């Protein structure tokens, strides 16, 4: 089985899409992440939900568990409101990282290895520069654990 056989259509957003809209899309459709594409439709990267949280939750709260406990609901809402006016490209990590993108003919094990290595809940499948779809971690586990 190849990556293209597991790939399913997946919503994608552009780098300049409104960050709040992208995050809402993830929330409404219960997606673990979303594909980010260039203007020409070719996939740029995956934006996992955890990266949205990394952007929203201040670093000093991420670093200090005790502080996370003292913050009330109102303050949490204020933090998420920070997404307003930001673009998807603002949410992406600044440092270089491996893109969770595979070719259609790649094996399922190659997809699984990339997912594990990149800590990505989904991988984009590309053919001839176009986004074919995505493989999610759930699809992958279903393939290896049939009937589970």
């Amino acid at each position: 089985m190849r990556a293209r056989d597991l790939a399913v259509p997946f919503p994608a957003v552009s780098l300049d899409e409104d960050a709040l809209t992208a995050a809402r899309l993830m929330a409404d459709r219960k997606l673990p992440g979303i594909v980010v594409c260039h203007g020409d439709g070719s996939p740029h990267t995956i934006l996992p939900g955890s990266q949205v949280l990394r952007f929203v939750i201040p670093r000093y709260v991420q670093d200090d568990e005790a502080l996370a406990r003292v913050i009330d609901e109102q303050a949490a809402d204020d933090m998420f409101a920070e997404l307003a006016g930001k673009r998807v490209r603002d949410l992406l990590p600044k440092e270089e990282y491996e893109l969770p993108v595979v070719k259609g003919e790649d094996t399922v094990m190659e997809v699984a290895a990339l997912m594990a290595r990149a800590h990505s809940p989904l991988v984009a499948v590309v053919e001839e520069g176009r986004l074919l779809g995505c493989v999610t971690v759930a699809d992958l586990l279903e393939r290896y654990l049939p009937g589970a």
Partner: protein
Amino acid sequence: MAVFAVVVFVAAYVLIVTERIHRVAAALGGAGIMLAAGVVGAEDAFFSEETGVDWNVVFLLLGMMIIVGVLRETGVFEYLAITAAKRAKGKPFRVMVTFVVLTAVASALLDNVTTVLLVAPVTLLVCLRLGVPPVPFLIAEVLASNIGGAATLIGDPPNIIIASRGDLSFNDFLFNMGPIVVLLLIVYLGLCRILFRRAFSYDEARVAQVMSLNEKDAIEDRVLLAKAGAVLLLVTVGFVLHSALDTEVSVIALLGAGLLVSIAGLSPKEYLGEVEWPTLVFFAGLFIMVGALIKVGIIGSLAELVTDVTGGNILLAAMLLLVVSGVLSGIVDNIPYVATMAPLVADLAEDAGNPGNVLWWALALGADLGGNATIVGASANVVVLGIAERNGYHISFLEFFKYGGIVALLTIALCVPYLWLRYFVLA
């Protein structure tokens, strides 16, 4: 051999100061070369009290890092800081005063780096909720940690080295450094009002956001807090009594750490997570390099030279030591500086006398307070810079110097009459 030792030492020092390679690599590399070239042997480096690694310093730091690692898990510091901010009713200057005092006191009991690591995140939270710029608060706290840390033997790593080399007790530090540090802290609080005056305008409507923080939720495990608090108290009492008990402070710290990890119920990964292994290895490398200089006679010759230059005048020597240490500690990290100077001061004290251990206090005050002058002057400064950077706030060298330089200058200037009056006029 003496020339070779000096060349290796200076080269390693330049690498440490310029940060061309990591300071641990520079110190360890320098120590390795001294050993490989036979400047010092394994006996000199690992077993000699005079030229070897000062294991009292290394294990005191290790013990305290473990205790702090457990204490950090309790969330008590966040609880104290938020309570203080609420008591200050969110008024920025009052908040700064409470945070500065909390940091200074905590720095006297714990090491400076740990203290600022604990206070910086909660400072960012409180400042951002109040809508005031956090950078002045972070700078004010790190300056306070260097002042407060000067008060005790365990408060600042240079003090630990000085205590070990000078055979000084916890109480010696408390009685000789404590009074001047309290005075400096009072002056510093007044100075904060002027230096950071632009940081105190705020929107009163935002005070409610601070008052709504649930500080009690910071403490998740009250049993662990009780255990850690009791052990810290026991260790502090042990430090005060260590001379009477004829026990090294390092032994007390290790006993405390051992007791705490036995009763805390945490995994080694949790209680060893706060141990700064690079710092401990850095210390070991430094001690071997300085030991090599002692063995080839460089330190002894330098001490004789200083004695000649000062004409055996201890007052002049103490003042020179205070001022030169203050200036140099602003340029290089005060840990390698004191590691190098401590054996020199020991020789100087033996040659020319040392009434009331004044030379040691001059070195400690100069190094601890001089570390405030620049961002690279003390490890805690670098740590705060990093925390600010990670949270999107850049503190430039000049911005830090604008405040730190004034505070270092003023606090060191105040030490001049203190040393003169206490150890010469009123002695």
